[in-house]
């Protein structure tokens, strides 16, 4: 196990190195640079423009800018915003808690709803419960989260003159207000994974419930709930954990939209603003961070197999 984890961690280095090249290049393929976006149609002289470009380091050759970026990664600062001159790491520290909270709440909501429904759907296969649950899953999978979010924003305001409160507070500052603001987007974001997890849970349960050991457990006279919870679910949920791990990039993508619609000051809105302003260090830093999170999440999922299923051995 230790060797396996070490090997995977070492493999992260070239992967992240590749990510740095990709994000560095891709953000520069976008038309316009920080300065042109910043000035828009306002007039400055060519000299002022050149001075500003020099100050921002945009007049340096691409390879020099790339090595500067690597240096910023190595020292952990991730560079400074070309527009605000603030450290990307400093900004991320302020933004990450909201994004993580949103993601965690979304996953918790998703699991809390999807697993019980998936199990019930399998237990009552081909009944109205099953049909209802499967329809819900299809709906959750097919309805875009931004559309649901807009509906949730729009109609309560029209019907009841109610809208989620504005003015985000961190959970440690004002837990009640924080949850009032975060709950709706978390539920909507959770729907994205809800359908997938529910359908997989149902399929796995159906498979496991037909296994000999489940039949044996029942034959031993164990209570139905014990058979389901201790014998069936434990084995059925291993692939579900994998899927949840794989949903993390989707959750991050979804959080960008949710943060924008619900005015949550997270990493998503930060990234959107940076892309619009062509603020290269921020785009690079956030993308590198997201890539790291995804890679680490995948590793964690893989490692968790060993704990959840003793049959899994790591070569």
């Amino acid at each position, binding site marked *: 196990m230790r060797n396996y984890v070490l090997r995977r961690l070492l493999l992260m280095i070239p992967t992240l190195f590749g990510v740095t090249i990709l994000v560095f290049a891709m953000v520069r393929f*976008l*038309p*316009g*640079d920080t300065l*042109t*976006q*910043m*000035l*828009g*149609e*306002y*007039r*400055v*002289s*060519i000299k*002022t*423009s050149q001075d*500003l470009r020099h100050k921002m380091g945009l007049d340096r050759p691409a390879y020099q800018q790339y090595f500067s970026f690597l240096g910023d990664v190595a020292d952990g600062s991730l560079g400074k*915003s070309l*527009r*605000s*001159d603030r450290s990307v790491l400093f*900004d991320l520290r*302020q*933004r990450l808690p909201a994004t993580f909270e949103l993601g965690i709440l979304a996953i918790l909501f998703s699991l809390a709803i999807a697993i019980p429904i998936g199990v019930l759907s399998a237990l009552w296969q081909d009944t109205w419960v099953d049909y209802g649950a499967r329809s819900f899953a299809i709906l959750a999978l097919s309805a875009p989260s931004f559309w649901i979010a*807009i509906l949730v*924003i*729009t109609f*309560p*305001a*029209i019907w009841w*003159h*109610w*809208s989620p*409160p*504005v*003015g*985000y507070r961190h959970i440690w500052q004002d837990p009640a207000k924080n949850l009032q603001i975060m709950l709706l987007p978390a539920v909507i974001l959770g729907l994205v994974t809800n359908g997938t997890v529910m359908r997989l849970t149902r399929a796995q349960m159906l498979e496991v419930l037909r296994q000999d050991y489940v039949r044996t457990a029942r034959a031993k006279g164990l209570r139905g709930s014990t058979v389901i919870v201790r014998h069936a679910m434990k084995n059925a949920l291993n692939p579900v954990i994998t899927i949840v791990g794989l949903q993390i990039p989707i959750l991050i993508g979804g959080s960008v939209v949710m943060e*924008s*619609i*619900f*005015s*949550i*000051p*997270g990493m998503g*809105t*930060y990234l*959107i*603003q940076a892309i*619009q*302003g*062509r603020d290269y260090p921020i785009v690079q830093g956030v993308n590198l961070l997201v890539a790291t999170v995804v890679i680490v999440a995948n590793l964690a999922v893989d490692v968790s197999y060993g704990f959840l299923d003793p049959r899994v051995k790591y070569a």
Partner: protein
Amino acid sequence: MRYADERRRWGRISRRRLIGTTALGGLSAAFLAACGGANNGTNNTKPAAATQTSVSGASTPATGGGATSAAGSPAAASAPPAGKPGGTLHWNMLAVDPTGFDPYADFNYQAHLTTLFYYSRLYTFATNADKPGAFWDYQVTTDTARALPEIADDGQTYTIKLRPDIKWQNLPPMNGRPLTAADVKFDMEFFLQNAQSRDVFTSVVDSVQAPDDTTVVIKLKLPYVALTNLLAAPHYFYLLPPDLLQKDGNVKNTHVGSGPFLWDTYEPGVRITYKKNPDYYGKPYPFVDASEGFIINDPNRVLSLFQSNQIDFMSPTIDQLPTLKQTKPDAKILEYFVNSLSFMYFLDAIPANKPPFNDPRARQAASLLLDRDGYAKLFFGGKGTWDNVINAGMGDFYLDPKGKDIGDTAQWFKFDPQKAKQLLSAAGYNNTEIPYHYSPGYGKVFAGWAEAVLAMLKEGFNLKAVPEDYGAYIANTFAGKGSGMVFGLQTDLTDPDLMLGRFFSPDNPLNNSHVNDPQINNLLAAQRKEFDHEKRKQIVWDIQRRNAEMMFYVPGVKGQTYTALQPSLKNFQPTPTYGFADTVTRLWLG
């Protein structure tokens, strides 16, 4: 808040859209008078009335002595305005986070809009609540200055008298000390050396002197009529604390000014808050105790917050208006015309002498194919106004393409497809495919305009639509690079010289059609040094007529923008451009 909303209305985040379409309006009431303290009546100075007019052309007669009085000037109103003090204003201040809070180092609307709450300027533009529905214009009024400048006969010396009661906010290191002419001198010199937006000033300002504590003398390199307007525009000169500039070289991390509000908090992505400055010189303003401006990027979210009474005002999009009226019948909705210009320009026609648009007849044909009334009916309920290369908000500097003063050149604004085809034939246009650029990045409303214009132009031209990402548009097409024709926008620059210079000065990087017309060049130079308003107006009209004849730029049509107010919000006085602090300073919560 309307700036953010307006930006949203057109989509992406750009100062240009913001400024261009969000100007809150400034249909100033008469630029009342008493500009007189500046005029000492001696023969070596021009009276302010004769030399300084609002950009709309309203004269500002000098009355001699006393403070300048102008509608909306908090410092100079003749009678104390009635208003209910107290409360916190909640509003949608921005769609995106500011990139910084140094108005010299951050040449963008967010930095200017947010810092105007606590920094003063010498002049500002008058606010006005009396004429909703009209254009907002740019009537200069005093801020920390006591009157409009005295301008010497040679047009090269501006003498500005400061109010004697201006103090820096009672925060370290300024600690409430008086704001003096020496501070203004230091700031102006620092600005000329360091500010990102300094170019327009450095080209005209020679030196600054402070002969006494309340007198500032600005000497110019050449006569220049637009300096007062530039001093009032929120893009340029602010009164920053010299002690901090000397110490740090910038004010990126400090927030001490002399304006109506004190800086309170900034939470990225959430809110910017201010508290009332109890020592503000413009008492009884501000009325509200605090302002809580939210940073919200989604227009639906803003609407829902207004509907649920969580914000005090908003700027609805045209799409949102029917829903808003239905669900908030008690909301007061103000309607204003925007001052941004929509126009067509031609990328390589003039520099590369490339047909068909190197021939004025092809450019005239483009204008004749534009059904301006149909366009106004389609998008603005028939209320749109025909643009020229000057904002209609610039009052009598604007030459109405439908008016009699446009003369014979009116023919080039009329919808006449038949004549357009004849012109194209005469110009030898052989139906070559021409790229037609526009940026849907401005939002779906603008994209609709651009596509409607495209459909009209296709009656005569073989056009290929080239929709562009906003970044690509600004970096390339707006910079005049590429080939073909473009439908675009221009922000509401505040003085005819800025607008005409942007269109026609050969050395201006924003001259997208690459115009270098000797006749216009001479007229441009002439209007810059013409201090007689009537004469200057005639020159500015001549430039507009010349453009109408040559159609270097084909002006489009402009429409309305809206602001919705909660019933409890009183005395909402729109301001031109994004000097929004002036509006917040004057309103109160009932």
